[in-house]
């Protein structure tokens, strides 16, 4: 799992590359949690993620809950069609704002 964090003005852009499963999900969460500060704007980019297990979905929901507690904002982008479908089937999808491009995601976070 590769985790690349860059700042796009006030937005923290977290690009994940690799599968998010029981082994890598805790790593991702460990990298993401420090970024969730009050009013933070987080863009989680799954552009390099082909597969997400149930642990990966839980990582997303944990992030979402932390964001809610910190009054921060979270937008997802780069979500592969199959992952989006899995999120829908398993009841995770409706929590998230998903944008088709990084630009759209930045706009949504603005």
């Amino acid at each position, binding site marked *: 799992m590769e985790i690349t964090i860059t700042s796009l003005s006030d937005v923290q852009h977290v690009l994940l590359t690799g599968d998010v*499963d*029981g*082994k890598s999900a805790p790593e991702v969460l460990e990298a993401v949690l420090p970024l969730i500060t009050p009013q933070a704007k987080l863009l989680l980019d799954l552009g390099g993620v082909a597969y997400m*297990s*149930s*642990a990966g*979905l*839980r990582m997303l*929901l944990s992030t979402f809950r932390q964001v809610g507690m910190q009054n921060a904002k979270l937008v997802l982008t780069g979500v592969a069609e199959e992952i989006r*479908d*899995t999120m*829908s*089937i*398993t*009841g*995770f999808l409706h929590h998230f704002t998903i944008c088709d491009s990084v630009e759209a995601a930045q706009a949504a976070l603005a």
Partner: protein
Amino acid sequence: MERIDTYPTHSFEGYKLRFGRPSPFGATVVPGGINFSIFSRNATYCVLVLFEKGAKKPFVEIPFRGMFEKVGTREPVWSDFRIGNVWTITVFDIDYESVEYAFRMDGPGGKAQRGAPAYHRFDPTTFLLDPYAKAIGGRDVWGKQPDWSEPYQHRGRIIYDDFDWESSTRPEIPMEDLVIYEMHVRGFTRDPSSGVRHPGTFSAIREKIPYLKSLGVNCVELMPIYEFDEFENSRLNEETGELLMNYWGYSTIGFFAPKAGFAATGKSGDGTMVADELKSLVKELHDNGIEVMLDVVFNHTAEGNEHGSTISFRGIDNSTYYILTPDGYYYNFSGTGNTLNCNNPIVRSMVLDALRYWAAEYHIDGFRFDLAAILGRDQWGAPMANPPLLEALAYDPILGKCKLIAEAWDAGGLYQVGSFPAYGRWAEWNGKYRDGMRKFLKGEPGTVGDIAQRVQGSPDLYLARGTTASINFITCHDGFTLMDLVSYDGKHNEANGENNNDGGNDNDSWNGGAEGPTDNPEIRALRRRQIKNAVTIMMASQGVPMILMGDEFGHSQSGNNNAYCHDTPLSWLDWAQAETNEDLVRFFSNRIAFRHEHPALRRREHPTNRDIVGSGYADISWHGTRAWNADWSPFSRTLAFLLCGKHAVRRGGSDDYIYVAMNTHWEDHEFELPGLPDSRQWRVSANTAMPSPEDCFDPGAEPLAANQSSFLVGARSVVVLVGR
């Protein structure tokens, strides 16, 4: 503060361990690792076996007793990770998602030969599935040929039960208000005509919620969804070449695991995801006011008799889990080879644990128990007066609001319809409602007296228990569909490959003049009318109605009354029929709406046949072609009843008066109408003799009856009037 028992104390071949926790049984994710706990009263030795997901060979086998190393000092130490009859160990640093687990056990008795009777069936070379496994792999995608060389076919998996239910609440619909829809998860949407994204799955049912709502049902009863093996006893039909499977699934492999092959996410091999998918379905059904009931099979397991295969229970503690003859043969009260020893205290606890788990973790609202009479047999097979399992379920705190429904008979000849031990909780599939109603509908003489009992919620059977003890149904998965009930005189089960010897012969069916499909317009019209008659009477009966999926659009199984083995369009619903038979769907949904509209139809107590509110009318009164004069004679085929609206409260006022006239004679009859009080007038709610759309009218929009003093009820027709 961190707990100090979250650190390993022992190690084995590099794997860190500590003495586990005996409760709960099964594999549980705990801080730092997984806790394993399994019961066996007779095992003398037990090994935990861990596999990488899908691997044929384990990556480690950890004995529960033997030499280990102490963590830190690496000093050898002898340990026995067992308390009482429970083997338990916590293994650290394993990824719950990527492992599968099994046990191997040894015990007394020597290796039992296949086919030979035995009290114990220990075999230390067999990988055993945990009876408490929350997810089971091996049949992840429905119908995918298994690798039969795999020594461990049904593989225990570990899941996270942390689904986010948000603010979703259980509907807790009063029993008397339920309209149950019996459904096979796969058959409901497997046909491409369903138009869903993932046909035949839990998630597909979610897509059909708008349909269920428009139909008006408020409870779905899912045929078995516990993990089973669709390949159990699978075989090719020699004539057709069709692969016959265990499609219905009344053969449980694990009581805690959902059928992975029913999940769109099953292919992921991720048990938590499968659980999430099912929970997500339950959540959305609840959010739409629809309850979820499970058809559960606790009377036997998939392990069969002495010729069967050892999957789990047999190799763990044969004599605890099964009712055995003194010679070590399996008693067969279930008709399927073995009988689960339900009133053994261990097995009783397991059943209770399973139901609590489904109620608590999956938010299930109720359970229908397959061949439930077996649950009241003792450890030697004799029926008990006060069966502890049934009592425990009735009084259980976690199941306190769950509906409990018994199929109150078994294959061993115990028939308890009307006498199932109820403890004020248990309802029954009312087999006498089905049989009586079928006879009456086809015009058999001598049935009106029986029908009078059935439409009142069967007080002859359930007087002390109330109307909600009676689940009223005319069809269910077992037997003809409603369309076939009115299209076939006899069963046509040739496709099952058993020379038409399987399936019941007491169908009380009638084809209307030709066997099977016909172009004769009169017969076709008669069949539709009979279908409408059936649902009209059922929705106007006291008790809890249950519809078989597809009956609302005339689903046919070509006369097959035992379609348990067909994973084909024979069993699958053809959604195109929902359009071609739109008039039937409309009629069903109208009759369901009618039922929801009128509390007079949904009393908790049986009618008293007396006026107890001073309205001048009894709560129910009986009529015939002459008002106030029902014809109870043996050759009567006419009966009408009047429900007094003032005996029911609706929106703070009283309900309408409801008059139901049933004519199962082959001639028209003029029914004299009972007079109405105040300035009420008779309005037509339904008349099955009329073509659609004049066959039924929306509640509130019923037209006035042209003649307020009598009504012509057509041959083999039912009329419903409302007086307001």
